[in-house]
């Protein structure tokens, strides 16, 4: 399929914006119409992204379907989009989770539907933009755009302590990203100073071959790293995450865990490492230690969480630790695994949040201690929940396994001891997830749940429609991880080459 | 009869004597303005001080400026100020409430500032004409005013107009003054309007020098 003539990337990025505008002009009391418009728009964007995937030249290393137009020529800032395998998989993840989230919001969100849907679609614009921007300035803009709708989504439609959570989320993220802005400008200027021209000073493709000098590289890397590490979130920058998750509405949590955390991982892979390879390599040891701490620490703390969402949030800290670990070992399998892990985590944790949302909708509670015996009352739900619980603990055959294993493998090549430490999470992960599952799903129906009477219904049709695609994806990616690994293999090779670690690192050969 | 070129006995030139006298009056008057307890007398001292300054202007060879000083400051501003004092001051002025409790700090700051200025003045090598003050030709002033400085001249007139318009608006008493409508409740008056300061209250206030304002 030839799509070179169409600005398909722009269409994907700004499609949701058009949807948001359409909704803006709909009367607010037409909530049903607004919901459907939002869903249809997100489905259309999803369709476009699938078309994009079909037309994508797999295996090619560099960016495709680039769109470039001068924007602020005085500083060489361009509107520049492009896609490679890494972007593609994350774009697909985003478009998929967005429509699922919108659909999942049909029932729970009844207040200010219009604003909600607009926020969601703008959120999608920002996220897609981040994944597709090849101009640092443009990237930064998309990066910040993401903040606002999420701030509103948590703050308006969130739980009782939502204001604290949302302000914490935004301020924390801002601290990082504003420093990143300084770094972006500093690198651009450093380029300009060396080259005497602003042309390309913000252009990713130009900058990644530029090679910044040592001190700037270190400082800029740290600034970028801080922004991304907060977003990922890496230990010890993670404490906003449990608060945000607990307070966010279900769909907000889905997107937060499913896509927003990936923005950080993507940023590290796309920008922090290739632009500042020397600094990245110098600091890799620290990053690896932080990742290992995150992996183990997140899992251990998850164990004692009384709240379902907090538990899943800490599990995210742990799982995202794999992503950063995979990135900073600079090793083919590890990095490919990290990317795969991002997708898997997006799908699985997104699904887990949906599952928690299902309980919450019925009980308006998420306290694990109050649950129990759901298997008897809501068998289908228990099955789906169990499925994702197993996927989350990395059961082979489901998608969580391959990514984790590849990261372990890469880490093992780097340092068997590090791999050994990381792999402890296999036990702790199983422990906290299964303990949670046992307390919620097994046993006799708890008194609290009994008191709900007939309100405690099994999963309904909408929820089934939202979860089924995720089941399918979990299975598909578990059985055919090559779908993603093949896409990202070439770009990963390139990134590793930039750090000076080529492919083919298996020891002894 | 021709006067001797210097003051007898003191052996200083006459113009220096005039200068010293005027400077003394000027500074003394100014000090009395800021130190005097009675505000009305302060106003009067100010007039004296300004008059001395007019003399200094004359000494500096700027008679036009001296005349303007008399007209503007003594004739207009001082009278304006005296009127304002009358309007806002009951007869029994709270004489003890003259100084803020930070007066000592103010004194230090003022002395320090004065010293800095003097040091700077002395330390700077001003490019001066050797033969003392040069008189300003009035005709030349007129030319400048309506030539090179015509824009500032017009602007000043606009400035005065604006000041007058605003001043009139602010100072004039509205017909419905007694009523309390139209008060911006967005800023509720935190301090209830005091009655015209009675002496008893004033002395009561005086004991604490600076009274903490009422909390909103």
């Amino acid at each position, binding site marked *: 399929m030839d799509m070179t003539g169409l600005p398909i990337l722009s269409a994907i990025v700004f499609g949701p914006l058009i949807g948001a505008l359409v909704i803006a002009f709909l009367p607010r009391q037409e909530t049903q119409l607004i919901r459907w418009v939002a869903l249809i728009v997100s489905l259309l964007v999803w369709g476009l992204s699938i078309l994009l995937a079909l037309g994508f030249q797999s295996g090619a290393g560099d960016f495709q379907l680039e769109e470039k137009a001068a924007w602020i020529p005085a500083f060489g800032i361009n509107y520049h989009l492009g896609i490679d395998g890494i972007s593609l998989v994350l774009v697909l993840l985003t478009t998929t989770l967005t429509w699922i989230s919108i659909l999942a919001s049909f029932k729970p969100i009844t207040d200010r539907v219009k604003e909600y849907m607009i926020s969601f679609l703008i959120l999608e614009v920002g996220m897609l933009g981040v994944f597709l921007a090849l101009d640092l300035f443009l990237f930064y803009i998309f990066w910040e755009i993401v903040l606002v709708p999420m701030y509103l989504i948590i703050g308006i439609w969130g739980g009782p302590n939502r204001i604290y959570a949302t302000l914490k989320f935004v301020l924390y993220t801002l601290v990082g990203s504003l420093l990143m802005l300084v770094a972006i400008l500093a690198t651009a200027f450093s380029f300009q100073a060396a080259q005497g021209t602003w042309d390309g000073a913000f252009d990713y493709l130009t900058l990644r071959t530029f090679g910044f000098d040592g001190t700037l590289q270190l400082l800029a890397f740290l600034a970028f790293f801080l922004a991304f590490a907060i977003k990922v979130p890496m230990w010890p920058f993670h404490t906003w995450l449990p608060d945000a998750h607990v307070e966010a509405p279900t769909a907000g949590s889905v997107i937060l865990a499913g896509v927003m955390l990936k923005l950080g991982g993507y940023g590290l892979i796309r920008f922090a490492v290739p632009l500042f390879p020397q600094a990245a390599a110098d600091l890799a040891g620290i990053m690896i230690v932080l990742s290992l701490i995150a992996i183990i620490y997140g899992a251990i703390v998850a164990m004692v969480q009384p709240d379902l969402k907090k538990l899943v949030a800490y599990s995210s800290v742990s799982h995202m630790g794999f992503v950063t670990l995979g990135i900073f070992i600079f090793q083919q*399998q590890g990095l490919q695994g990290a990317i795969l892990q991002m997708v898997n985590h997006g799908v699985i944790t997104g699904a887990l949040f949906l599952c928690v949302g299902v309980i919450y909708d019925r009980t308006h509670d998420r306290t694990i201690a109050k649950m129990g015996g759901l298997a008897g009352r809501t068998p289908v739900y228990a099955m789906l929940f169990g499925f994702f619980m197993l996927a989350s603990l990395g059961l082979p055959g489901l998608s969580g396994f391959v990514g984790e294993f590849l990261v372990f493998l890469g880490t093992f090549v780097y340092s068997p001891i590090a791999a050994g430490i990381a792999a402890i999470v296999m036990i702790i992960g199983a422990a906290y997830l299964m303990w949670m599952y046992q307390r919620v799903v097994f046993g006799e129906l708890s008194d609290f749940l009994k008191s709900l009477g007939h309100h405690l219904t099994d999963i309904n049709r909408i929820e089934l429609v939202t979860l089924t695609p995720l089941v399918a994806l979990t299975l598909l990616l578990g059985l055919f991880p090559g779908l993603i690994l093949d896409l990202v293999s070439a770009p990963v090779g390139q990134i590793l080459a930039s750090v000076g670690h080529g492919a083919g690192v298996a*020891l002894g050969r | 009869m021709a006067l001797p070129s210097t003051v007898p006995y003191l052996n200083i030139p006459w113009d220096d004597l005039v200068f010293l006298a005027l400077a003394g009056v000027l500074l003394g008057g100014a000090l009395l303005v800021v130190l005097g307890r009675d505000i009305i007398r302060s106003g009067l001292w100010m007039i004296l001080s300004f008059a001395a300054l007019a003399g200094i202007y004359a000494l500096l060879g700027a008679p036009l400026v001296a005349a303007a000083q008399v007209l503007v400051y003594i004739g207009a501003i001082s009278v304006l100020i005296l009127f304002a004092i009358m309007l806002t001051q009951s007869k029994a002025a709270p004489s003890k409430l003259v100084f803020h409790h930070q007066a000592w700090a103010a004194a230090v700051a003022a002395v320090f500032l004065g010293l800095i200025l003097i040091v700077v003045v002395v330390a700077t090598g001003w490019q001066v004409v050797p033969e003392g003050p040069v008189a300003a030709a009035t005709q030349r002033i007129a030319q400048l005013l309506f030539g090179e400085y015509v824009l500032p001249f017009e602007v000043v007139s606009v400035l005065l107009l604006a000041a007058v318009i605003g001043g009139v608006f602010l100072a004039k008493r509205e017909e419905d003054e007694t009523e309390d409508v139209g008060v911006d409740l967005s800023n509720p008056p935190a301090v209830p309007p005091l009655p015209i300061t009675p002496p008893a209250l004033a002395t009561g206030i005086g004991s604490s020098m*600076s009274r903490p304002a009422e909390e909103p």
Partner: protein
Amino acid sequence: MPVEQLSVLLLLAIPLGGFGVTALIGRRLGTRAWMVAVPAIVITWVIAMGLVYQTLFAHAFPVAGLHFSLYEWIPAGDFRVEVNFAVDALTAVMLIVVCSVGMLVHVYSIGYMAHDPGRWRFFAYLNFFMFSMLLLVLADNFLLLFVAWELVGLSSYLLIGFWYRRRTAALAAKKAFIVNRVGDLGFSLGIMAIWTVVGTLNFPEVFAKLPELYESGAIPPWQMTGIALLLFCGAMGKSAQFPLHVWLPDAMEGPTPVSALIHAATMVNAGVYLVARSSNIFALVPGAMVVVAAIGIFTAILAASIAFTQTDIKRVLAYSTLSQLGYMFAALGVGAYVAAIFHLVAHGFFKGLLFLDSGSVIHAVHEEQDMNRMGGLARKIPITHWTMLIGSLAISGIPPLAGFFSKDEILAESFKNGFLWVWAIGVVVALMTAFYMFRLMGKTFYGPSHVDPAVEPKIHESPPSMTVPLILLAVPSIGIGAALGLPFGSGLISQWLSPVFEHAEELMGRHPQAFELLGIDGGLILVSVAVSVLGVVGAWYLFGFFNLHPREALVRTWTERVRPLYVGSYNKWYFDELYDLLFVRIGGLFAAALWWFDRAVIDGTVNGVAALTQGAGREIRHIQTGRVQNYALGIAAGLIVMAVGFLVVVSR
């Protein structure tokens, strides 16, 4: 696609399909929930037997076996893992056990689960287990094996927790999975290590290259030992070897057919299979072998000592399973691979039989598992009684039943390979095994009845769907030892498996020895038979046999004399308590402390910075006093600072 490959795929696809169909529509089938699952496994059995015939009898495949790949599963740079399968003699032998026991358990379950409303789930899970287990034995690379490894773990989890309303069942399921994960952690690290040194995970290549690399000196011995021990970690978890043995007894919370199939006959043998499969690796590092032997034989005696005092019929069998698995590992450790697999096969049948019997007993006395509330059942449930007697004799090693041959071979091999300590302990364990098995028989079937009087009249033999499998399992329990093990030293089993382990034997420098019935081998046989008989007779004397009445008073006095030992054994040597303390309590405290740290220190810092900023704002606002003179003074001060600053800095 050739028919052999197709049949391998069908072997996997049919149970998986059975699982899928049952899971989706099983609930609607009601009492006929088995109608998809059981026929599926019967068909699977037929196909499996075809493959077994092709492999073992028709020799249709080369010695290395049938290997083929389905598709590339993980393509990540150099790390390429395919979904590929292999069928060789070892696989075939495993297929015999897995499919036969599996099929019989399926049939048995029709009756056993007839009254359980969740039966559709049960059959679905069983089918899923069959799929996983078959994948485990058919996998041709380590990672795929690992996948199956975890999937059988999952099936085990699901089936142990089948009665999820029972808290103990849910806890046991979780415990089983998590303890297994401990082993899997080692296993997965071992896999990574293998890939790191060899660059592939396919069995044939790994087993061919690793010895080469080792002998060429490319891999230092500590690495090789490490790999072997990491793999053994996995085996320890799955086969419940000390110190990871704690999950298996608890796993008896699952329905009895599950205990028979998964926790006796098949899944728990996966560890043995793994070590046997990796014999080429273990054979290179004698140190690792010793570890395997030691842990195996220690588990054997530890479990046997616990089995002595347990009163729950299934728990006795569970500890007996542990003990027998320990035997197998001891065999692997001494290099007796064939013997280990032989015992695996025999044990699979007779232990499956014993468990199904126990299920039948439990069924008869209305879900009572405590042997103290049984007794005198021999006449009331004769088929169960007789088949169980056969099983008990088999496990006790009484010739010519199955257990005798395999157990004897293990003991003989350890003796001959110089592991006298293994042999000595093994003999003791044999004695203990015979004793506690017949203690079980005595307390259950003989002597006076302690059954609940309300239940007593209703005791009846199980339906045919249960008894027929018992009878069918009793047949191999009697005969398979002789069928495969005779003549001594060169029976069918060693004909089949010798080629598989040939390379490993070479690496160990072992040479086939002639069997001397009138020499050392005969002597060893005599010893093992003697201790078995001693154990059996001792148990008869104390706990009764047919009309021989138990001597309860005597038992009590003897128990009192060794009370500390008795209490220790009865409480399983307090392993559960120890682990509970270490991992649940202390670990929980640690987790709680860490969470406190998270909130107080990490989040506290974050909030502290925010609070500090706000506090600074609050304080700094006090300079705004509202009084103009203060402001003016501030400005004047600013002016002075500015002036002085300018004068100092600019004038320099």
